[in-house]
């Protein structure tokens, strides 16, 4: 699809010199998200890898106005920006709240639920690297079953990942989408679409993380693709409740060529302690979710 590539905004909003790790999936995703949202954007973000990516005061490689806020505060901060802009009659700006899985699934959930329930006009983006990476790869409620983290060092994570999409769906917001930096055009399109919609929009990005997941930096795109191709992380959007697969997940749904999860898990050091029973449970969990999505896509 080379013609699709031409529509991508050529302007760069992330200049060289970010403080993210080599091969960081977040950098890749953030770059395309900002390209899609363009100039009139204000970002708010909490303590996280993204906060570090933004650089050390007084220099930043990111050419978009940005507020840092405390860990639990992201969505409330966006609500404050939106209210402030509204009060000042500045209505042409998109407010992007973007936080890690820890700042979304765990500590930020109250503020996010509140902001979504109030129909705050903003895009909330969770970049999900499946752990507290900024503080050294601790477990979050987004960490998958069987993963070693620094707080599940021996026994591994004993629970499945929290189904956060369901939580956001329960808020009946107009737009929900998942995307991956391994499929940048899909990601770009979803941010472009989200920008045009009013109300609370939720975008969930799967962000492969070389040090946190235990794979070589050059394999980030491959890891992102495998997450999609094994249906560990399907790509879709839910517009006003209507579910639709997109990109690679769409062709997978049509052709039924989903790969076994082992193809994805075996390439990541964090799953080195996973036992056969956990592997079985992991596959069963993925299959169940995939079936649910397939059913919804046919409704």
């Amino acid at each position, binding site marked *: 699809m080379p013609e699709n590539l031409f529509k991508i905004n050529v302007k760069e909003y992330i200049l060289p010199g970010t403080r993210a790790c080599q091969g960081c999936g977040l950098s890749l995703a953030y770059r395309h998200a900002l390209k899609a949202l363009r*100039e*009139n*954007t*204000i970002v*708010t973000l909490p303590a996280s890898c993204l*906060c*570090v990516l*933004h*650089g*050390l*005061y*007084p*220099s*930043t490689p*990111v*050419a*978009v*106005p*940005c*507020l*840092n*806020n*405390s860990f*639990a*505060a992201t*969505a*409330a*901060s*966006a*609500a*404050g*920006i939106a*209210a*402030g*802009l*509204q*009060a*000042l009659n*500045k209505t042409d*700006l998109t407010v992007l709240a973007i936080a890690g899985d820890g700042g979304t699934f765990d500590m930020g959930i*109250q*503020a996010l*639920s*509140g902001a979504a*329930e*109030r129909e705050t006009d903003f895009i909330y983006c969770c970049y999900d690297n499946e752990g507290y990476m900024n503080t050294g790869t601790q477990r979050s409620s987004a960490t998958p079953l069987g993963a070693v983290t620094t707080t599940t060092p021996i026994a591994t994570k004993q629970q499945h990942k929290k189904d956060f999409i369901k939580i956001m769906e329960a808020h009946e917001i107009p737009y929900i989408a998942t995307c991956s930096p391994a499929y940048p055009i899909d990601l770009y399109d979803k941010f472009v679409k989200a920008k045009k919609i009013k109300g609370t929009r939720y975008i969930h990005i799967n962000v492969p993380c070389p040090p946190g997941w235990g794979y070589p930096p050059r394999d980030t795109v491959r890891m992102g693709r495998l997450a999609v191709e094994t249906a560990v992380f399907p790509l879709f959007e839910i517009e006003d409740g209507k579910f639709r697969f997109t990109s690679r997940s769409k062709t997978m749904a049509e052709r039924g060529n989903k790969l076994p999860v082992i193809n994805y898990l075996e390439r990541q050091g964090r799953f080195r302690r996973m036992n056969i029973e956990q592997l079985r449970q992991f596959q069963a969990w993925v299959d169940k979710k995939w079936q649910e999505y397939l059913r919804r896509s046919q409704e």
Partner: protein
Amino acid sequence: MPEVQIMTGNAAAAQAAVLCDVQVVAAYPITPQSQLAEILSQYIEGGKLKAEYVRVEGEHSALTVCISASTVGARVFTATSANGLLYMHEQLHWAAGSRLPIVMCCVNRGVGAPWTIFNDQQDSVSQRDTGWIQIYCRNNQEILDTIIQAYRIAEAVYCPVMVAYDGFVLSHTMMPVEIPDAASVREFLPPYRPHTVVSPEDPRTLNAVLFPWRRANAQGVVCDGYMEMRHKLQAALERALDVIRETNDLYAARFGRDCGGLVWEYRMEDAEVVLTAMGSLASEATVAADLLREEGIRAGVAGIRVFRPFPADDVRRVFRKAAAVCCFEKAISYGYEGALCTEIKGALYGTGVSFPIHNYICGLGGRDVKASELAQAVRESLTDMAAGRVRTRAMWLNCVTE
């Protein structure tokens, strides 16, 4: 034209928010602040106040909304009490560190556990070191006047201001309040100008991470490190002492009401024993001073209106001629004594004074404090002092302590 109305302290605070043309309100209900959140909803929904009201799901978010809205250039207002204030604690530091001129009412209430809805000042006093200016009110008129002054002070020094007033004692008690006319308030309070303009034309990352040392920007200009920024916050609070005094004087000249600057005085001309306290307790102390004077005891009151920045010079000047001090407090720094008492002693250190200072912890969780009880405490202090009995710890007034 100004008009006088009978109203509660919470209503007076809401009136002040209207007069100050606040643009964003975010609040979460908690007794005894709730009424204020409700009145503001009425004003905003009814069109009396043109502002965005963000009905947040908790106090951490309430202050976060204020922080972000203030950052993009809106004048913001919030209010809370007790556990609500403590739930905001992280953001109190964030607001001050971001140098945002947020004004918040703390409707003083005791802190759980165990639960109490009644008044003391443990909530605000325990937030002393968050970088907020703290001003305590004596009555409902002062609540209104202080909020108007608070915006002017906050926007001059870029520090947040907490306007503290006692729950129920003021928040739910009706008193006559003169409401200044809106035009004069607007003249007194010019529109808010943020210190940093957040705009796509000049994209900046605000409150980015920094390392301990100073660092050069892309143009090679060496910029502040964390410690320089902290020093600037400290310097702003020190500068605020003059700004608060000047603002008080300017307000008095414009509106005819003097709220007492930093430390107000009552019958202090020839006072030998000085009663000191904050908020409505200090008002109560003036009645106690009258009682004592009737008996020939030369008592006066030094009311601490501003607890942070601490007006050490004023305390030194006002207490200079005292022979004895009784410090009454509705809060305690557990394991030591009342924080105000410690501050006063600290301010007097090195001035050569050697009069005894007695500390009384009183009114916690709404326990009654009558003027007659304050007077009796002073009498007992004077007896002990005359007998040369040294007190090493705070007394608990009206409380079974054995």
